[in-house]
């Protein structure tokens, strides 16, 4: 067995221990180094969208220059402007540098009185109501042949995106012994309504005026969410990722009424299938910790963005593994010495007992999400200091 393969298997064992909330050999250093990689090498994300050579170059650079044990997200991106140009619309737009962001006004294409149709038949509702409103290609007056050929063009762009993902994963695994710890991604049902059907102001109005409809639509979308990961088998050291968007804005009463039932049902179903579920608790969640304690024990990895991670460890550390701790803001603006102090404190306070994954509190996307000198220093420090003795 090559030393690279040996390293990969050791890292996989470390991750399998830690995501099951056990004590591993050492604290793993996790990469959420996304499009920041392009800025690091003097490019823009747009350059990578259109060049497999540039993608390969920046991938090799970040895995050569910084120490990592495992990858959550890399520089290859699952979106491309060509997709939305062919479809004639969509929820995303791209800025001049090639970063995708939600297109203003593009999400809210569902009328509030249409919840019964969504609940009755989610797929039929998307096909009949949402696709024609969202994309020019699916409008009623577009002829059959144009639609058919348009979809084939979409497939061709998706093939290019899949090839980019494979280029990244092959380099990470075969040249650096790094594996991708995220096996798949899905949205909690009510976040799907927020992100793709009603937008923020729409769903907040619905929660006030028709909370039962939001809750029931969430329950109707549990199977819809599960369908998207039906072919993904559980693997040692790997998780399914649920990025969570709405709960930080909900008070506990509304969270319990509209969001929690379908979210809990989804997580329970995934755990029943043998998966470990990684939940990105975006922004602050302290007001909802009582609910998070009811998630399946030692089957959750919580990525905490703005919560006090020591409070998280105290309140939830016996229930779930914890990821994060170093803010991208500190990684960019603080001095190297300050960063090392922060990270030493994280290891001292969060590593005891296991179940801690070191990483940034969110993905590194923009140029200001990290200073290379700081990143190099903290990753090497954790690799050496985070060994359980």
């Amino acid at each position, binding site marked *: 067995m090559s030393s690279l393969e040996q390293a990969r298997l050791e890292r996989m064992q470390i991750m399998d221990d830690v995501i099951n909330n056990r004590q591993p050999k050492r604290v793993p250093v996790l990469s959420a180094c996304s499009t920041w990689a392009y800025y690091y090498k003097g490019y823009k994300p747009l350059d990578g969208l259109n060049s497999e050579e540039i993608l390969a170059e920046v991938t090799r650079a970040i895995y050569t220059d910084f120490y990592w044990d495992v990858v959550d997200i890399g520089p290859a991106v699952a979106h491309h402007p060509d997709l939305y140009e062919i479809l004639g619309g969509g929820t995303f737009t791209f800025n001049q540098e090639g970063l995708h962001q939600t297109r203003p006004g593009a999400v809210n294409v569902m009328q509030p009185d249409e919840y019964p149709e969504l609940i009755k038949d989610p*797929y039929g509702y998307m*096909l009949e109501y949402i696709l*024609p409103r969202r994309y020019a290609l699916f409008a009623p007056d577009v002829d*059959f042949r144009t639609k058919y050929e348009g*979809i*084939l063009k979409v*497939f061709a762009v998706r093939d290019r995106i899949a090839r980019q993902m494979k280029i990244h994963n092959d380099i990470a695994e075969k040249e650096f012994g790094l594996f991708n710890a995220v096996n798949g991604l899905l949205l909690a049902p009510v976040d799907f309504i927020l992100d793709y059907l009603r937008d923020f102001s729409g769903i907040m109005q619905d929660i006030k005026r028709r909370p039962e409809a939001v809750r029931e639509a969430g329950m109707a979308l549990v199977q819809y969410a599960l369908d998207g990961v039906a072919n993904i088998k559980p693997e040692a050291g790997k998780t399914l990722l649920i990025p969570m968007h709405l709960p930080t804005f909900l008070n506990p009463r509304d969270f319990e009424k509209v969001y929690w039932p379908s979210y809990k049902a989804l997580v329970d179903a995934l755990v029943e299938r043998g998966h470990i579920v990684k939940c990105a608790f975006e922004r602050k969640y302290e007001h909802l910790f009582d609910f998070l304690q009811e998630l399946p024990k030692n089957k959750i990895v919580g990525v905490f963005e703005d919560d006090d991670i020591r409070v998280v460890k105290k309140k939830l550390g016996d229930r779930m593994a914890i990821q994060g701790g170093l803010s991208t803001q500190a990684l960019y603006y603080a001095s190297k010495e300050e960063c090392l102090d922060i990270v030493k404190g994280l290891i001292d306070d969060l590593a005891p007992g296991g179940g801690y994954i070191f990483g940034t509190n969110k993905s590194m996307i923009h140029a200001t999400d990290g200073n290379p000198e700081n990143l190099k220093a903290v990753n090497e420090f954790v690799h050496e200091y985070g060994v359980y003795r």
Partner: protein
Amino acid sequence: MENNNREVLEKIAKEVLGAKTPEEVEKAVKILIKSFM
């Protein structure tokens, strides 16, 4: 105006994705719908 989206997706399911039985076609159409959301 009547929309032909389902018919288009069914044709894609059969000719591109290789679905043969009605159940396979229905499953493939669902996957296609989800992929555009």
